[in-house]
């Protein structure tokens, strides 16, 4: 019974809380990416260069790679 209560607590309170915080991190990195792209575009850099640099700038890439590495296992 205690195990079930704990599992439900984890599922309905903890997991949404963790997802909410992860979404907050995604929001921060997404906003940074957009602003960085705008700053590069202001200097009239070619679009392909902007794309490559923005992709390289993206701080969430390492975390995404880590998640995909887990899913590939």
């Amino acid at each position, binding site marked *: 019974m*205690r*195990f079930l*209560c*704990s*599992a439900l607590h*984890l599922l309905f309170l*903890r997991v949404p*809380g*963790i997802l909410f*915080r*992860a979404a*907050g*991190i995604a929001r*921060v*990195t997404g*906003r*940074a990416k957009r*602003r*960085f*792209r*705008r*700053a*590069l575009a*202001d*200097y009239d*850099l070619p679009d392909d*260069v902007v794309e*490559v*640099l923005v992709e*390289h*700038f*993206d*701080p*969430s*890439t*390492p*975390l995404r*790679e*880590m998640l995909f*590495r*887990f899913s590939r296992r």
Partner: protein
Amino acid sequence: MVDEKVGTPKKLEELLNELVEDMKNAKTPEEVEVLGEKAKILRGLIEAYEGDKDLDKIPLLMEKVGDMVEDILEPLKELLNELYSPERVQAMGRSVAEFYKNLTEAGMDKDAALELTKEYMDAINPGKKLMEMLGEMVGGGRHLGPINIVQDESGDKRKGEGE
């Protein structure tokens, strides 16, 4: 009403004492054999009880893990918010664009300029380094293994395992 937490080990202890007494008083080999069977059953009961105790630890563990993840994510978000504040990102974008433009205007090849700009970005983007470290830590510590010392003809060369 029997207290579940205290009642079970007490009953097991009583059974064990009873068994020990019976073994002391046993006179024939048949009696000892029967008591041996009884002891096996009792052992099974004790193991089942200990297994249940481990199961009770799981909710506690889940609580702790949940707390830990939340404790990591909240400060991480605050830190990223600080590292990627609008002004900082704007300044970073400006400096990167200027760096690339200067290189291309100086006549450098486009690909080489792009590679150098990427290296420059790595140097001025601490948030990404932080996320990379976090990713490596969570994903099995690829770069956190022991240091291998590789010796070649030119001398000692220290090298990380994951590289």
